[in-house]
């Protein structure tokens, strides 16, 4: 719609209309685009004005020479041209609003509510944003039973992985008759790709302390420990400052807030063993012993730290508690699914455009997390799967991306919530290689107490490694499944019981990829180096030397303008030549002269 009011006509809107008509014909869009002259729009000082419908995009102060660009960009390619747009005088700011950015828009911040907003080293700022309000309420107005009832009613479940109802755990510990009871905050975050606990410890340490004081009142504990892994020095430093400041203000220690309640917290630094995240192993580590798990029952809620009843909750769980007490169980339970309430933080990593921490209501679909919040896969590659829940979790293939993430549906799909690490994979990821990676991690981290886990993870790794080397045999998949079940059934702790998940879930959803490796000696994703071979296509090679320069092992022979040859004995299959080869300058028409060829044996 071209404005043909007097004002716009006087500054040349008819010329704009002519140019527009000409350009639309040139681009062959005359059947799709209707050009009409309208009456005055009332923005005469901004003329000539153009309104594009149905989007309602408003262009202003156009010149005839702007039209070809505008038509091509907006009408042909569908990209509105910002520089010609009208910006209402009140908002001269073309910066998007936080609430309009997809990454932030779909998140619901409860635990991360203070992210980027407060200085974690100043307790006053935490207090300024309602900090310690919940604790004051719990200490002054609530009985331990009421606190537990509130937490139970909220439906909060442990955020560390297994999803045990927090209220139930507290209740069990509350019932124990013992002289001392303890609280532990589990900050031994070890899943590759997960960093939500670190971020909470660093960004909002007071929230964890507040949650622990509330928990202490509920179960009757006088002492708590925050277990932080050695790899998180900044987290440790900030928690240390937080504890000191809370003590100074009388928010920790004797007679908290003058209510007569005593509770104090101490930091314990872990040595960085993955298994120490398991609660009984963590207790051993806090006690100063080697971090290995023991048989349960008795559960830590009955016999925990130094044989006393102990509640262990994860960092994210503790940081959720004050929000529930402050806003009420009903509010919290209003978010999420039937069995999983509230929000969950995921660390979004891997082949994804927006990496970072996202907090979404339980039940959000993988599709929404990956595509709406995560912004999809870089370079428009194909979304293949997500690995969720770290080494204990499993992969969820693209075909299940409508799956809502909550504890039950993830477990049903063969993965688990875990701590919420979400690794996105594209079609260049080999699932056999992925299984190998996690098995390698687990065989390293297995404490070795149960034979089934120690030997099971080692053997499974050996078999999968053999498969990726092109030495897979008939029966390997069946053997893997058998080992996986043995490892699951016969191991004592969560590590061994879930160690087979990466293998079982990749076998379940990507069996064809295993078969291709074993029977056809082929790696469809082009990852397993023994199964691929780089080869120059003579008909496409221009002899530009780019690949030769990029080769770290001098495996490419060739002269300028002569077809290059890759010496297979020197080639280490790093792929640098494939990266370097791009003689077609236009990205979309990129056409490499180097291909990955399957090894034929």
């Amino acid at each position: 719609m071209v404005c043909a009011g007097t004002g716009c006509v006087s500054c040349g809107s008819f010329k704009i209309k002519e140019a527009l008509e000409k350009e639309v014909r040139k681009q062959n869009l005359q059947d799709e685009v209707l050009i009409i002259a309208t009456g005055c729009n009332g923005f005469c000082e901004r003329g000539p004005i153009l309104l594009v419908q149905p989007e309602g995009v408003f262009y202003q102060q156009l010149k005839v020479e702007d039209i070809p660009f505008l038509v091509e960009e907006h009408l042909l390619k569908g990209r509105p041209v910002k520089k010609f747009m009208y910006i209402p005088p009140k908002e001269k700011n073309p910066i998007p609003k936080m609430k309009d950015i997809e990454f932030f828009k779909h998140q619901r911040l409860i635990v991360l509510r203070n992210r980027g907003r407060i200085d974690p080293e100043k307790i006053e700022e935490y207090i300024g944003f309602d900090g310690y309000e919940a604790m004051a309420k719990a200490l002054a107005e609530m009985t331990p039973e009421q606190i537990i009832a509130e937490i139970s009613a909220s439906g909060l479940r442990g955020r560390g992985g297994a999803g045990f109802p927090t209220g139930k755990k507290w209740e069990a510990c509350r019932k124990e008759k013992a002289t001392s009871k303890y609280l532990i905050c589990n900050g031994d975050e070890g899943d590759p790709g997960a960093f939500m606990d670190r971020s909470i410890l660093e960004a909002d340490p007071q929230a964890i302390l507040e949650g622990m004081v509330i928990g202490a009142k509920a179960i009757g504990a006088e002492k708590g420990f925050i277990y932080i892994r050695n790899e998180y020095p900044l987290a440790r430093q900030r928690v240390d400052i937080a504890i000191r400041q809370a003590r100074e203000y009388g928010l920790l220690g004797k007679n908290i807030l003058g209510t007569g309640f005593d509770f104090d917290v101490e930091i314990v630094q872990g040595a960085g063993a993955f298994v120490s995240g398991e609660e009984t192993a963590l207790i051993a580590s806090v006690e100063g012993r080697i971090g290995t798990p023991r048989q349960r029952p008795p559960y830590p809620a009955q016999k925990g730290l130094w044989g006393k009843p102990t509640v262990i909750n994860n960092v994210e769980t503790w940081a959720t508690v004050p929000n529930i007490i402050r806003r009420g169980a009903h509010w919290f339970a209003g978010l999420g699914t039937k069995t999983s309430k509230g929000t969950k933080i995921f660390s979004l990593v891997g082949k994804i455009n927006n990496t970072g921490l996202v907090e979404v209501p339980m039940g959000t679909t993988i599709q929404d997390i990956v595509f709406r919040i995560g912004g999809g896969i870089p370079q428009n590659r194909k979304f293949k799967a997500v690995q969720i829940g770290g080494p204990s979790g499993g992969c969820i293939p693209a075909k299940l991306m409508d799956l809502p993430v909550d504890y039950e549906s993830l477990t049903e799909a063969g993965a688990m919530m875990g701590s919420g690490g979400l690794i996105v994979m594209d079609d260049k990821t080999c699932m056999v290689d992925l299984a190998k990676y996690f098995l390698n991690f687990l065989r390293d981290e297995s404490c070795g107490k149960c034979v089934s886990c120690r030997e099971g993870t080692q053997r499974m790794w050996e078999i999968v490694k053999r498969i990726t080397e092109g030495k897979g045999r008939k029966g390997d998949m069946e053997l893997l499944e058998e080992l996986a079940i043995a490892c699951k059934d016969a191991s004592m702790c969560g590590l061994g019981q879930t160690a087979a998940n990466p293998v079982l879930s990749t076998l379940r959803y990507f069996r064809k990829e295993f078969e291709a490796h074993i029977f056809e000696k082929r790696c469809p994703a082009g990852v397993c180096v023994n199964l691929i071979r780089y080869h120059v296509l003579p008909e496409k090679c221009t002899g530009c030397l780019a690949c030769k320069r990029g080769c770290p092992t001098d495996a490419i022979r060739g002269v300028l303008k002569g077809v290059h040859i890759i010496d297979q004995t020197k080639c280490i299959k790093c792929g640098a030549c494939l990266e370097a080869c791009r003689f077609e300058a236009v990205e979309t028409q990129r056409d490499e002269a180097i291909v990955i060829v399957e090894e034929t044996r």
Partner: protein
Amino acid sequence: MAEKKKLRIQDLVKMREKARSLSTIRESQGRAKVTVHMGTCGIAAGAREIMDALLDEMKQKKAKDVVVTTSGCAGLCNREPMATVELKDQPPVKYFDLTPEKMRKIFVKHVLGGQPATEYALAVGSETLY
């Protein structure tokens, strides 16, 4: 160090009100507040250099009425280092993919000049809380 007064419940409420007014800078003296996001991810991406550049620029320009503070990860780790500039009575503006040079330019243009450096800005406003 002198022993701080142990808080009672009624003190907590007072302190909250005081802290709230300080953190919104409307009541305090500063012309602007600049927050550099310094979680491990931000620091790994170079947030310390951003902070150094900011402090240096403040010293050079003798800007004493600017409050500089740090905060944790803002969530979008692949666009770190990030910083937030908040002028008195104006919505905060988040800047991303910062370099020391960009930070200096933002300081001159936005903090001193009052005009958001749109070319480096990610977003204006703050996240919605549930």
